[in-house]
């Protein structure tokens, strides 16, 4: 029995590896209460007094507040799950591109400070693709603070070809807020004048913005400005949708306007001229595919020669789309459409978990799969002893 923790940039998922569902979901941010204790429970933060909200994970998906992370793990394992840290194996999912230093810090935290007996770090995209039974995949993970596109060939992450961008869920939150600011605060005063912008941003993103994203947002099947009015009509994009803002106000937007908000993910320049379109989602995906092709042909010059085309085919037929922000209607189709322009000669096949609930927990489920591998040495377990050995080796 081991505990699996997935620290996303927005939400943390935790639970035991021998049951199908996680035990708890909490925030990856925290506030301090009157007793100077850290609060991780999302509801408690929203209810609580207005205090600054701090994040644990950086936008790169790497922890930067290690002390808070330590407290969070402690709280999860001991308070919420009722287990003992010194007795329970721990598996955490980590971003695919963390440096060796960060890795050491993770092990130090788990094995050194929290005294966990054995510990495993699981690379998120790898875990997701393996848990879906694929050892070759192109994992597109659209989370809150970042989007990562990772090519995996034969169970190995091609880290040189992976690309990360900041156009993801949090970016959409901001876009929604900007778009609706006028409608909502028409006559009222701006809410952002409140003393704690981090607090109101936290609450908004977990209340009405979350609802707005789920119900209103959609992605147009191709670039919005390239569609003529007949197509727009045919797709019904002029039909308005009504959103009730906090039981107070009706916000009415046409589907086209809803698409416009998400268009920034694919063409960042739509949102602001400071952003480059090269960072758009479909562009980075195709870049990753090309880079992966190039990278493997360089490396495998000796024995088993794989051509760039083979890599392209392998990746393009194994597209996995995951992450909470990937749930926006039409997003999967748009990625496939855009890619088919870029790679007209290849067959494309994509997979996105149809169960909404499962997709949100996919990374955690990946971790669970890795924790439950039938043989001990299949997983990448590290014990305290291993950590000490590496330390002494380094000292010599």
């Amino acid at each position, binding site marked *: 029995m081991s505990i699996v923790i997935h620290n996303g940039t927005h939400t943390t998922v935790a639970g035991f590896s021998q049951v199908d569902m996680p035990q708890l979901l909490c925030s990856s941010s925290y506030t301090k209460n009157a007793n100077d204790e850290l609060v991780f429970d999302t509801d408690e933060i929203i209810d609580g007094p207005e205090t600054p909200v701090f994040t644990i994970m950086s936008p790169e998906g790497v922890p930067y507040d290690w002390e808070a992370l330590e407290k969070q793990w402690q709280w999860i394992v001991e308070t919420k799950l009722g287990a003992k840290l010194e007795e329970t194996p721990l598996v955490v999912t980590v971003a695919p591109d963390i440096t060796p230093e960060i890795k050491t810090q993770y092990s130090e935290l788990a094995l050194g400070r929290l005294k966990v007996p054995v510990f495993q770090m699981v690379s998120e995209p790898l875990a997701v693709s393996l848990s879906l039974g694929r050892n070759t995949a192109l994992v597109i993970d659209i989370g809150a603070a970042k989007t990562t596109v990772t090519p995996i060939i034969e169970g190995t992450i091609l880290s040189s070809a992976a690309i990360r961008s900041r156009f993801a869920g949090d970016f959409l939150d901001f876009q929604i807020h900007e778009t609706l600011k006028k409608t909502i605060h028409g006559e009222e005063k701006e809410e952002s004048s409140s003393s704690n912008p981090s607090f109101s941003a936290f609450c908004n993103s977990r*209340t009405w913005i*979350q609802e707005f994203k789920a119900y209103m947002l959609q992605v147009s099947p191709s670039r919005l400005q390239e569609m003529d009015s007949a197509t727009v009509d045919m797709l019904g994009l002029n039909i308005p949708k009504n959103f009730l803002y906090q039981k*107070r106000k009706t916000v009415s937007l046409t589907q086209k306007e809803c698409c416009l908000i998400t268009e920034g993910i694919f063409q960042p320049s739509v949102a602001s001229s400071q952003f480059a379109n090269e960072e758009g989602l479909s562009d980075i995906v195709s870049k990753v595919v090309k880079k992966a092709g190039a990278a493997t042909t360089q490396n495998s010059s000796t024995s088993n020669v794989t051509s760039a085309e083979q890599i392209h085919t392998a990746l393009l037929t194994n597209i996995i789309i995951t992450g909470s922000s990937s749930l926006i209607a039409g997003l999967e189709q748009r990625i496939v459409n855009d890619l088919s322009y870029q790679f007209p000669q290849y067959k494309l096949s994509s997979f996105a978990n149809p169960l909404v*609930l499962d997709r949100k927990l996919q990374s955690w489920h990946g971790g669970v799969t890795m924790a439950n591998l039938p043989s001990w040495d299949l997983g990448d377990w590290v014990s305290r002893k291993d950590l000490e050995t590496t330390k002494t080796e380094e000292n010599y």
Partner: protein
Amino acid sequence: MAPFRQDSYFIIYPSSQHALVQFGMREETLYPPQYKIPISVYKTINGKYTTEKEGNELVKPLLDGQIVDLDGFLFFLELVYKSYLAQRSRFGASPEVFDMELSNIPMLLVSHPSWTHFQVERITQLVFEQLQINNFMFLSSNLACSYALGSLQNCVVIDVHADSTDVTPIMDYIQLTHLSGKVKNGGDLINQELAHSLPQWSPDQIEDLKRSPVYEVLSEDAKNVSKLNFQNEEDDGAFDVAALVTSDRDTRELLEENEKGKESQQTTNSEQETNTFVDRDGQQVTVGKQRFKGCEKLISEISAVVGRVLVKIDDFHKLRAIWENIVVIGGTTEISGFKEALLQKLLEDHLIEEPIAEKTTREQDYYNQATNKKKAKALFSNNVDYVQIPTVIRLAKYPDYFPEWKKHGYSELPFLGAQIVAKQGFGHTNESFYITRERYDKKGPSSVWDVTF
């Protein structure tokens, strides 16, 4: 494995204060539990658990469903089981029962989602090693509700304890523990509120009032009616002709109903300025309008948490179904009118409908724009459709086909679910629903994770 005898099923549901226990089930219909045993044991100075009250410390192993004293709880389970065996065999005087109904007892324990894995495994160990039971299953109280209501695939269970309330959504028969929410108050909040309005009363009297039939939550309609009666007697007989005309029902039928209503009105609690109830000492106590107050705060706190829990689910089809199946359990919900008032509050807080101010201006505009000819029609302008859910909120429908339970009321719904599951699980040749001795011998307490119902 030979099938079990239904008269040897052992079902236990430890709820907030009491454990509901039943040994054996009848063939035809399901009956409410045989025993209601307070969950409290005593602890000696040496740390041993006992039933002796004298000189020992009272321990309540459960707090709002959570296990706070595991050893105490284990002792309690053992005590219940062994006492029954002793009683049934007449303390060994009739040993033949051990060959018959006590020979192979399957046990079902209704669990609370807050029980940790360690606690669950420890209980499993007790059952197999100390109680020597060979077949055992856990059933979460929330899932038990879903089974009790004829296998509700999607619902949300609101379990009102004494000091807290749990809100747990169920989707596709899976309990979503990670999305569940907790209200920091439960039934005791009502006592506190009552203590404010009845400062001279003792806590026991307040508790008795809360449990008495005269204590109820009035609906808006009932409140209006009773206010009228309080202020002006003449209104009593007034008859709403407009309502009669606009409704498409038979006039005679309505008139009859009205007559009937009048008769019963003379006795309804809500009509009377004061009413009396009998407290635990057998005294008649008279109470005024305070008997309709005290639940508002609890209800609005619950409603807020329900909203927050359900907004996290974004599978719209299932979410719709969940909003239409609200299950409310716990002793507090026996208060008449409580469930209805909660539903009313949920509707008020969460139903997606056009804000009234906007609706009036919109209709006004529409009316002004329309030509004279169309004016009559324009009064009925279309509603605004929203993308959000819920547009309907309903309480789950309780089953009608358990006559005994219907009489008993459904605040102990998980027990009914446990009975149904026990019948199906243990009555089946498939052994994958429960832990068998064989499995336990192979894997020990962790075998509990290999079985699910």
